């Protein structure tokens, strides 16, 4: 159990300026009140039970510096997309947007940041200190011809971003959120993403987290779903020494479908924590959650998924699963799949498994002439396929597979 001797939060926030975004006063007051007298949470706090923040508190972040447009362009993954680049204080917005799609800087536009719940000091700090963000609106009945790609490049310093998405009724879009790290820098970022999904909208979010071994990557996703909408968040953690994802979806309209998927490939001393909450507020909705990961070396993976079914949310079907494979003696996995159910006519289930590759399966492959390494690779690849199957974009899939193969010496 760690205790921070003196308050390390004060020096951490000392150089943060007030937010430049249009965040409601009431929200700022709430965040201010929350932060009163707070320090970095210790492992005694339930939400940080498995996350040691001392590393962040003691980190020497490199000085923030901005990259130029040409440099930023190297970090994109999709070649054909409406690409937005986010780098510290600057945001590059694409020109020639199609009818129905509007992208504004949150600093210029009166954003529509509504009351969003925050669970920790970082969420509160974001409210008070967010320096940048975009506001994206998709008109009703609009189906985007190309995906939107948001490339966040971290190049030193502390950054708080706050983005807002408004998807009109019956709209359809895919958003790729790419998080990258400039070499030789150490940085911290906290990204708040807010999604409002209107009736019948079909929205898929893909998060490609590919930061370096010296980046603290904090993410906070808040979604509100209206009736009959289909919403997906797929979080793929490819790299990054310290990643925390806090995702919350409020299902507010009937017959909505929610998919939360996650995949993580961990090695070295990576720490990746996924916290998810699906809040079923109304009846007749479905949610599906699949998080899968492998952890090698000294990596730690944390999964905490909560399915909350309120009293009125009858006929809810909620499925949640978390499966992990441990590859080494020193890796660890902490899983906490929670159900909190106040309605009776529901079908909710969750499953969690932790184990290693099936020896029989390995033997089967070895007997057919595969080397130990490729048999293992093949099985691990198959294991992760459940989540990767949601990634339909060829370019992205190829990128993911190439990155994993590189990092783990897996030959796909």
């Amino acid at each position: 159990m760690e205790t921070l001797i003196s308050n390390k939060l004060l020096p951490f926030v000392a150089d943060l300026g007030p937010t430049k975004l249009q965040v409601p006063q009431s929200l700022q007051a709430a965040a201010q009140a929350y932060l009163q007298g707070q320090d970095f949470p210790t492992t005694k706090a339930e939400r940080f039970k498995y996350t040691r923040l001392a590393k962040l508190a003691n980190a020497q972040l490199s000085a923030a510096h901005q990259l130029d447009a040409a440099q930023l362009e190297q970090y994109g993954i999709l070649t054909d997309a409406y690409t937005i680049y986010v780098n510290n204080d600057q945001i590059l917005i694409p020109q020639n947007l199609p009818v129905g799609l509007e992208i504004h800087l949150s600093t210029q536009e009166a954003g529509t940041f509504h009351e969003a719940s925050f669970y920790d000091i970082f969420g509160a700090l974001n409210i008070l200190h967010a320096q940048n963000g975009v506001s994206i609106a998709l008109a009703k009945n609009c189906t985007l011809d190309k995906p939107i790609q948001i490339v966040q490049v971290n190049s030193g310093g502390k950054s708080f971003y706050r983005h807002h998405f408004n998807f009109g009724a019956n709209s359809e879009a895919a958003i790729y959120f790419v998080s990258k790290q400039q070499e030789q820098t150490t940085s911290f970022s906290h990204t708040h993403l807010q999604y409002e999904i209107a009736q019948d909208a079909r929205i898929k979010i893909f998060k490609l987290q590919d930061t370096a071994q010296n980046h603290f990557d904090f993410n906070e996703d808040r979604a509100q779903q209206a009736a009959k909408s289909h919403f997906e968040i797929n979080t793929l953690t490819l790299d990054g020494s310290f990643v925390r994802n806090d995702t919350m979806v409020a299902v507010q309209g009937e017959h909505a479908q929610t998919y939360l998927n996650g995949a993580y490939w961990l090695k070295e001393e990576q720490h990746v924590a996924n916290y998810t909450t699906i809040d079923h507020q109304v009846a007749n909705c479905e949610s599906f959650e699949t998080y899968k990961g492998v952890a090698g070396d000294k990596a730690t993976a944390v999964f905490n998924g909560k399915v909350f079914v309120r009293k009125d949310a009858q006929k809810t079907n909620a499925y949640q699963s978390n499966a992990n494979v441990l590859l080494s003696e020193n890796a660890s996995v902490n899983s906490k799949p929670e159900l909190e159910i106040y309605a009776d006519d529901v079908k909710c289930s969750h499953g969690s498994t932790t184990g290693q590759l099936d020896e029989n399966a390995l033997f089967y492959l070895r007997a057919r002439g595969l080397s130990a390494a490729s048999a293992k690779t093949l099985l691990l690849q198959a294991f992760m396929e459940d989540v990767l199957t949601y990634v339909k974009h060829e370019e992205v899939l190829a990128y993911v597979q190439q990155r994993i193969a590189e990092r783990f010496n897996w030959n796909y």
Partner: protein
Amino acid sequence: MSNYTENELAKDLENQEYKFGFVTDIEADTVPIGLNEDIIRLISFKKNEPEWLLNYRLKAFAIWQEMTEPEWAHVQYQKPDFQAISYYSAPKQTKKYESWDDVDPEMKETMKKLGISMEEQQRLTGVAVDFVMDSVSVATSFKEKLSELGIIFCSFSDAVQEHPELVQKYMGTVVPSTDNFYAALNGAVFTDGSFCYIPKGVRCPMELSTYFRINAGGTGQFERTLVVADEGAYVSYLEGCTAPQRDENQLHAAVVELIALNDAEIKYSTVQNWYPGDKQGKGGVFNFVTKRGICEANAKISWTQVETGSAVTWKYPSCILKGDNSVGEFYSVAVTNNYQQADTGTKMVHLGKNTKSTIISKGISAGKSQNSYRGLVQIYKGAQNARNFSQCDSLLMTDECGAHTFPYIECKNPSAKIEHEATTSKIGEDQLFYCMQRGISEEKAISLIVNGYCKEVLNQLPMEFAVEAQKLLAISLEGSVG
């Protein structure tokens, strides 16, 4: 009752009054209310305890004073005022009964109402009963038969007098006073309980059983149970409880410690039916229990519990699988009705190699109750080839109750295999339809399904106990079970 619907069942459940609600009027020897060092010295003096035990109590009290009540459980209740409780209550006659006939007739009557008449127990079932009524053991049977085998089965205070070396050696080794708030409180003020020691290689020929019963207004019960199975020994231990109806909340903070040495096996079964409060959620027993067992090499500890009572339950029978090849099991049925709240589950701590644990938890929520499973499966680095299987199912009977699952799974060894699954649903309409289509009335069908739902756990209970458990389930969910 051909039109018996689930709604009616729910209504019936709500109208269900506690059947064992009565107060026995026995003169009790009670210490003044409140808690301080003097009270602890008084308790210790009254019980004629050796100095090391008094020191143990005082140390626990000092620890307790530093602690705050835990808040993490998914329950809400009016916190007990620890200074308003009398911490010792003994039936007035302090002399030991020479024979069964000497026992206060009123007390015998009480036991009869509970359906555990000792004569009957002795004659019919061959179960030795160590009957605890308000903290002092009243009568112990079959003691001689057991002592032939070298088995010690007596009240905790007797054990302190007669076998101090065993008590001193094992007490507090599994649940130290520093463990939690209620364990510390118990360490300071425990009044009595049971002690059981099975010598090396002895297989206890009968099920050992203790009936707890809370009596006398305003008395909290602080039991302490210590079961030690020496190398290669086997014992099956039963614990069952009923309590009289009362308005004010009663606190029960017991500690149960099981120690299974190499190759030993302990089976610990509980049927708990304390007063759950009335339909408005008034009154009822607070049940804050710390139960834990430690397994040495090749040992096995199995917890089985049927929980139907108490207003607030806070109970996690756990196993520390310290030795290689040790096995931990947890089977539980928890039924909550009206305003009952239960936060119960288990902890399986895997330290040794090839350790195995199984968790089967079945929750049934009715009325406006809240029923939570909270479990921890922890695989330490050295626990090669550890294996865990957990299954937590919840059945919801009304739309006003809640069922929750909070499992913690922590794995630090790559060779471990952990599986956890949980489901929550109401009684399947297709299952009901299937039964009714075959001419089974709806009431019977519901009973059949609930029975089948709990079967996995009820099967684990010893025969004598299974009958009682089924009786209690039937009382708690009358109209649907039995």
